[in-house]
């Protein structure tokens, strides 16, 4: 079973539906027992970093997540769920993240060298600096769907996918069994479904 952590942030309908469509047993949950009994964990999220990290703390699940991932259970953070995995975010202030992946989350707009639109919304091509089993069904140049205004940086060592938007956007990261995608696999058509399928096979 894949546990989708419900901490009151965002709409989990499409994510749950996409796993069900793939024939993968999943449960939207905020219970520690479910996370313990799950064989994989997904940490979703949309909205503001500070609000989300506080809500996640309020669930009291962070220690369970840490223990489970330290023991090797695969976790996938999606969009803001990925950003929460880092040490720090500079989204309207400075906020501590979970520190599961080294790096920090910063505004895209501060680093652009030309006046592109922010948020970075739409389909963008993936590039892979190194091979990873998460992308075993995906090809270089396949497009995925992004919606975000902040991005992870200082995490080159852990970066397993990127996209170009004037600057190099961190598309996906990995530290041990902890994975994160800035894009939405549950909204990225066949390519996204193939990434979720690969996650279920890790």
């Amino acid at each position, binding site marked *: 079973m894949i546990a989708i952590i419900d901490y009151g942030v965002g709409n989990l*309908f*499409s994510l749950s539906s996409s796993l069900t469509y793939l024939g993968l047993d999943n449960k939207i949950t905020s219970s520690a027992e479910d996370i313990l009994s799950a064989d994989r964990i997904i940490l979703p999220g949309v*909205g503001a970093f500070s609000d989300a990290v506080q809500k996640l703390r309020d669930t009291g699940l962070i220690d369970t997540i840490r223990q489970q991932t330290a023991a090797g259970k695969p976790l996938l953070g999606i969009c803001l769920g990925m950003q929460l995995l880092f040490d720090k975010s500079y989204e309207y202030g400075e906020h501590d993240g979970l520190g599961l992946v080294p790096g920090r989350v910063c505004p895209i707009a501060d680093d652009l060298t030309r006046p592109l*639109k922010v948020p970075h919304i*739409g*389909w963008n*091509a993936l590039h892979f600096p190194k091979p990873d089993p998460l992308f075993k069904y995906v090809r270089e140049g396949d*497009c995925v769907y992004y919606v975000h205004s902040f991005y992870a940086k200082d995490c080159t060592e852990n970066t397993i996918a990127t996209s170009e938007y004037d600057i190099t956007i961190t598309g996906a990261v990995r530290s041990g069994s902890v994975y994160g995608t800035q894009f939405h696999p549950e909204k990225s*058509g066949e390519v996204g479904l193939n990434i979720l399928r690969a996650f279920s096979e890790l």
Partner: protein
Amino acid sequence: MITKRIIPCLDIRDGRVVKGVNFEGIQDVEHPVELAKFYNQSGADELVFYDITASFEGRALFTDILTQVASQIFIPLTVGGGINTLDDFDRVLKCGADKVSVNSGAIKNPKLIEQAAKKYGDQCVVLSMDIKRVDGQFRLFAKGGREDTGIDALEWARMGEQNGAGELVVNSIDTDGVKDGFDLEMLAAIADRVNIPIIASGGAGRMEDFSELFHTLPKVDAGLAASIFHFKEIEIRDLKTYLRGQGIEMRI
């Protein structure tokens, strides 16, 4: 880089697609789920569902259809039609919509965009505008293009962005249905005033119209059309291959 998007729009009345005819390979062309699946397979980058039902029963049918689509198709879904309150946002978002398009609802209650953007995020709120030239001015129309509001559409677009709309749909009443190309003059005027994604609608008749749109106006992000796709005058996959050949970035 971000690809340009090609978006088919499906008008739904009482749970059925209006205008859907002449599709090979689909048994029931008026069935929204079947047509949505077809477009997904054809390479559509996003789907827009427009609820043109007036009745309560029709609205319930619509949300039921939306749930079915969102359970089987995993690309961004935008929903519009009859969105007047935050409760309407809630109703369609719960059924799997990613973005909600407001038109007359924002004219009746200009606070709606701001409230929705605060609650659901800018990326969720699409401001759709029907615009027509009146006395040398781009004028905003309401009620499906039937009523002149007297509002300057360029100012309305700017205010929409300021209030938190994450995207604009610009539908030119002047070119709608004419099939002689998008309204480049109107789109350029809007693009000069906002810095959020613009979806061009109204006037596409040939593949060259899309090429001209994206080449002439780099700030336009997407082309939306209904009947040319429904009637298979243009196949989305052919269109995207053609546009890529013209040097326009496309997801294929």
